[in-house]
């Protein structure tokens, strides 16, 4: 399936910058994402990938740049703002409250409320069972706090949270880092399925093979700067690796940086 990139992108992040204590963690980076597209974000540890997408998810405030959703400029000041734009995030460091159960985590900040104004635990658990039945049918620990779950089980709660609320733009920051081969395969299938539904996905992953398999394009970052964005069908694994390591696009001289 080829992606139609003739229309307006779902998201465009233009000339994004942010610095921490004088260090430019992200420096003038532009990326975009079309409906039904998976864009991989690659780069060494500390390249600025997580920081870039945290500006989209509302966790960090950019010091420069502009974000467009459906072609309209938007201001994202908080995670709530991002959610109102149907941007959902699966964070690299699992953002779960360990002391709460799966349902409470899934609905955290967006609780189901009964007509009397109380939290509707029964409905939240029923919905959680439904979505987990789809994402991870072996999941059983609905009553336990998530601190009692395995890394993979926790990850499936985090994914369920993003998927449940009808994300249009999904950010996945190393979603399979804590998973075994079977669960990794499950996430890959889920990505294909969400993509088919027209959701746009930013996928951060260190596994070049996975990116080659799942992504339509890849943007490579180094030292906070964008090395370049390539169409996956046009490149090889080695091309991507050399972009990550050398910081130059295939066919470009090694003089940049």
């Amino acid at each position: 399936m080829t992606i139609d990139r003739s229309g307006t992108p779902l998201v465009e992040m233009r000339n994004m910058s942010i610095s921490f204590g004088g260090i430019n963690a992200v420096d003038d980076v532009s990326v975009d994402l079309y409906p039904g597209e998976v864009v991989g974000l690659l780069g060494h540890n500390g390249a600025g990938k997580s920081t870039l997408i945290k500006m989209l998810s509302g966790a960090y405030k950019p010091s420069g740049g502009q974000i467009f959703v459906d072609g309209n400029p938007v201001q994202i000041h908080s995670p709530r703002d991002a959610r109102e734009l149907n941007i959902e995030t699966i964070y690299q460091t699992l953002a779960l409250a360990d002391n709460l159960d799966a349902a409470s985590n899934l609905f955290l900040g967006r609780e189901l409320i009964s007509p009397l104004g109380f939290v509707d635990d029964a409905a939240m658990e029923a919905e959680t069972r439904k979505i987990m039945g789809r994402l991870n049918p072996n999941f059983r620990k609905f009553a336990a706090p998530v601190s009692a779950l395995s890394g993979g089980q926790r990850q499936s709660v985090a994914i369920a949270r993003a998927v449940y609320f009808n994300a249009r733009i999904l950010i996945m920051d190393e979603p399979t880092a804590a998973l075994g081969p079977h669960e990794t395969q499950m996430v890959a299938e889920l990505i294909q399925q969400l993509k088919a539904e027209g959701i746009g996905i930013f996928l951060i992953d260190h596994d070049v093979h996975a990116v080659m398999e799942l992504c339509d394009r890849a943007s490579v970052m180094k030292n906070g700067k964008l090395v370049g964005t390539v169409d996956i069908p046009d490149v090889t694994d080695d091309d991507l690796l050399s972009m990550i390591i050398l910081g130059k696009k295939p066919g470009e001289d090694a003089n940049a940086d």
Partner: protein
Amino acid sequence: MNNILTKLPFVSNVRFRDAGTLVGLLLIALVFSILSPSFLTMPNIGNILQQSSINACIALGMTLVIISGGIDLSVGPVAALSATLGAAMMVAGVPVPIAMLGAIAVGVSCGFVNGALIAWGGLQPFIVTLGGLSLYRALALIYTGGTPIFGIPSEFRSIANGAVMGVPTPVIIVAILALIAWVVLTKTPLGEYLMAVGGNPEAARVAGVPVSLTKISAYMISGALASIASLILIGRLGAAEPTLGNLWELDAIAASAIGGASLMGGRGSIVGTLLGCVILGALRNGLTLLNVQAFYQLLATGIIIIVAMLIDRATSGK
């Protein structure tokens, strides 16, 4: 054991912990009822509940604050400040209900100041409320010149000294407040937010939880409950002393901790805290009945707190 039980439906970790606190209370009651025949009589049980009610009122708020990952050391002085201002209003002829609301507003305001400095100012809860402990006490002393306020109307005093079907009004008031606190904690979004903010503030923030407002709410509730406790006290005593509420914070923290609240945040229970208050109250009452010297009562309180924590640690598997 813990794991097997908590796998059964309807036996959550919280209820398991509460059951443990209840067993502790029953053991203490058993020992005292053997040593003193008057311990387990209806009038004495009423006494214990009555004596525990003020601490319970404070501890309810303390528990919510502790669950949110904070601590409120300023409850005693907040109580003193709202009691003296409320009493002064009553003495000046302000209608009793308005004076009561005024006193509660003072407590809520103090709580707001604490919460704002912590949530918006980014200061440590321990330090902010330690500062509050001196500050609010000083305000109460300065305002009164250090002397108690007398002349509290009997209309108001009769509320705190009354009883409904043999149950002292303070016990009823605190029971209602406890029910409200329980509903807030277990049935409302604010309760979920308190747990989440105490458990993992960063996760709560990225999930869109209004972290600052949640923390500030906890301190405001704590301030309100401190005021209500002080109103109960001055109603019973008939005077508002600027020095009242000394060391209240420690009893409330002890009751919360005995009841299963974790000072790391994210864990605690209203039922447990109430049981914790009754444990402390029963202990003091029982030792007094046995004519044990106050020094030893203090010793026993300390031992109970530490034993409760040791049992907690041994059974929580962490």
